[in-house]
């Protein structure tokens, strides 16, 4: 026989007892209601999704339904969910989880997410999916609660580790799973030892250019799917690596991974309208910028300050307050030479000559011309504070926002911004899960050197739910390091127009995950603007070249 039959005996024993004791007996109506309730909960087919009718208040998009169906029916509940940022991986995971719970196939569930997202996941599962998920706070939660959300760092640590490894999980969900690509890490080893029937790995960037990272991730989900290590080495990493092989690898990966790209979803995405706003430094600002640049020519100083010159140059382009804080910290640093200290102090004095902030003036002008809400992103806390003060002087209310805010403070600030303030001034994208799609205007007051962070900034408003075109204003201070970055790199790779998700693939494919460091090196090691330009050109052509190539290990997300 190809299956076993089990009889649940609990009913019978209790019934016989009641026969002996002459009751108690139910009334006929309740008896019928019990059967009707059961009938409505019957799962009529092996295939298909029951979950949507249980959560009618959640708008589920067609591609999300398809992902859930595919993972359950084609992948036996083991899949890497790798949709591009903003397409709703959390919804997909929640949908799959709900389906297994409704079918009675998953009861004990563990959700491992970055610490900063624990509360948000818990909240979404409870409100959207009506799943009573609990954040892990006390040790007893592991054993006594069925659906637990925790950070992997907590779970893997003693005394939790042993308890967690002892649980029989039906389903394990891991968010930001690309962090598990290295099998030598404690996290990897921990997840490998978890007992799991169904497993979902969520990641926006699974496609690394290093094949062993793909191998490690897939081996966690389904050991052997890509062969064992020796075989994999032989087939894909050694000299035999070729197009035919690559196609085969891609097919194998597609069996365990779904990846939707924006253009696959059939959704209408609002446009991104990008404007570069040139800023001319005032004479005093320019003077300060030049003085800082000149410190590089002083060789003893340059050695001591190392990268600080570049930092200071960038800060001048933001606000004198930002420069001041850095200089102050430098001058107070222990073990610093007198010469360096004096030069820092001199520069601090020079700051006092700066009588205006050209960028802030421009920002004000733009904000006043827009009859709508505006988000300003800056790299510096000092600039953030200054801008808040400056806008207030001109009768414009604003709220601050930082990545380090606690969850409820983030929610509160979002609420204030939505209902009471015109401007939100943020120092970081604020992490995942903060949705500002009611706003359509973004000012990139200064630019981060990590292009992924720009994607994250824009992704806060350019996402599902955004009904209007999004306007992006990039401030570029003329004849400074900032303009180089914008003109030589970001504009050439169409950073701002490209949709989210393209960039991370490009970067990881060329092995340029630390692009920030490359940019820094270019500026630091180049003696002339011409040299900077040439090196940036080279970097750019590398990025744009790979843009045209097929995506090596990327799943196509639809077969």
């Amino acid at each position, binding site marked *: 026989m190809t299956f076993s*039959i089990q009889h649940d005996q609990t009913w019978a024993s209790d019934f*016989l007892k009641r026969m002996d004791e002459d009751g108690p007996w139910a009334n*006929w109506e309740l008896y*019928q209601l019990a059967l009707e309730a059961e009938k409505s909960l019957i799962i009529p087919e092996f295939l298909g999704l029951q979950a949507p009718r249980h959560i*009618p*208040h959640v708008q589920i998009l067609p591609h999300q339904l398809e992902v859930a169906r595919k993972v359950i029916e084609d992948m036996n509940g083991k899949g890497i969910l790798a949709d591009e940022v903003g397409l709703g991986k959390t919804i997909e995971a929640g949908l799959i989880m709900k389906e297994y719970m409704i079918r009675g196939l998953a009861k004990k569930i563990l959700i491992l997410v970055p610490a900063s997202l624990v509360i948000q996941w818990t909240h979404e599962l409870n409100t959207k999916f009506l799943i009573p998920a609990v954040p892990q706070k006390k040790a007893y939660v592991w054993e006594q609660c069925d659906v637990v959300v925790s950070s992997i760092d907590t779970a893997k640590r003693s005394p939790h580790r042993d308890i967690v490894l002892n649980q029989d999980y039906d389903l394990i969900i891991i968010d930001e799973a690309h962090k598990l690509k290295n099998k030598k890490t404690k996290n990897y080893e921990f997840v490998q030892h*978890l007992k799991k*029937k169904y497993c979902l790995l969520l990641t926006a960037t699974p496609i690394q250019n290093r094949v062993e990272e793909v191998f490690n991730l897939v081996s966690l989900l389904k050991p052997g799917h890509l062969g064992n290590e020796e075989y994999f080495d032989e087939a894909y990493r050694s000299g035999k690596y070729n197009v035919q092989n690559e196609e085969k690898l891609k097919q194998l990966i597609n069996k365990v991974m779904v990846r939707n790209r924006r253009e696959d979803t059939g959704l209408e995405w609002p446009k991104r309208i990008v404007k570069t706003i040139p800023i001319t430094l005032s004479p005093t600002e320019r003077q300060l910028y030049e003085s800082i640049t000149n410190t590089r020519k002083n060789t003893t100083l340059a050695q001591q300050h190392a990268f600080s010159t570049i930092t200071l140059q960038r800060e001048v382009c933001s606000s004198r307050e930002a420069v001041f804080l850095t200089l102050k910290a430098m001058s107070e640093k222990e073990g610093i030479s007198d010469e360096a200290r004096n030069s820092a102090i001199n520069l601090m004095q020079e700051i006092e000559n700066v009588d205006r902030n050209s960028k802030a003036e421009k920002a004000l002008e733009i904000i006043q011309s827009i009859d709508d809400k505006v988000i300003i992103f800056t790299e510096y806390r000092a600039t953030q504070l200054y801008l808040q003060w400056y806008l207030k002087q001109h009768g414009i209310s604003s709220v601050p926002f930082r990545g380090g805010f606690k969850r409820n403070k983030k929610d509160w600030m979002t609420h204030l911004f939505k209902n009471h303030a015109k401007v939100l001034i943020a120092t970081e994208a604020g992490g995942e899960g903060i949705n500002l799609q009611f706003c359509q205007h973004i000012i990139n007051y200064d630019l981060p050197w990590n292009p992924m962070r720009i994607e994250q900034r824009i992704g806060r408003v350019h996402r599902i739910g955004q009904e209007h075109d999004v306007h992006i204003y990039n401030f570029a201070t003329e004849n400074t390091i900032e303009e180089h970055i914008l003109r030589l790199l970001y504009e050439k790779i169409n950073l701002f127009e490209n949709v989210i998700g393209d960039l991370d693939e490009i970067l990881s494919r060329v092995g340029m995950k630390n692009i920030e460091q490359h940019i820094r090196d270019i500026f630091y090691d180049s003696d002339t603007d011409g040299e900077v330009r040439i090196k940036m050109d080279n970097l750019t052509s590398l990025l744009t070249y790979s843009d045209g190539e097929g995506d090596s290990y990327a799943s196509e997300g639809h077969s």
Partner: protein
Amino acid sequence: MLQKDIHNFLERYFNSNDCELLERYESMLHVQLTIELDKLLMNRPFYWHYQQMTGAEPNPMKLKLRTEQAEDGSGDGEFIHFGSPRLHQIFQSTKQLGSYIRLYENVMQNNQSYIPLVPWLGLNIKVSYQCDRKKDLLHSIGLNLINGIMVSEFQSLLQAKPLTPKIPDYCYTMSSMIKPVSGIKRIESYIEQSILEDDPQWSIDARKRWQEDEELLDHFYQDAEELPESYHVEKQALKELYEPKVIVQIINGGMFYLSNHTMMH
């Protein structure tokens, strides 16, 4: 279940649990819970514990349930839909409250002679086919405990009859030739037989999926000198995931004493 069906279900539920309906509209119910239902649904064991200790006047809660949401989200009361936890809690409680039953056919008696009632065992049974996927089937079986005749769709036959919890006048129950305990066994083996006659393709497919994954796993560790613990953990997990099984569970059931002229064959 549509929203309308849910409303009807709730109204019948509270009525049959003797709860007073304080307000009743097309899509809203306001009910005064009984002490028993408060304990079942409201999840406040401490209140009832203290009430018992202090002997205070028990004060069961009122419940306001809506099956239609005002467009602006206004309107007090809990919105109930098919997925809402409250409804599932109520579903769950019906299982507790409506599991075991004994009923008699309310036979209209004209002449003065006594009428025998035949004992039937009726069971509503859920059969779940489970591997990494799952589906369910409901059976409703009645077994005549005098002659051993078994009928399917028993519940619908019952629903067409007048039934009463007290034995009607001028009626008597015949004693069973088959004991209830063996009756349950007979019905179970009948169910088992019907499962075995089913197409087993689903379980063959599941075993195939299981075997494929197990072969991959063995391949993955084939060069290991000693198989690590992660191998055994994964192997066990594959078994639990794919191993096909059928679970037979009795939803509810009981004794039904029916008049002999019932055309059940």
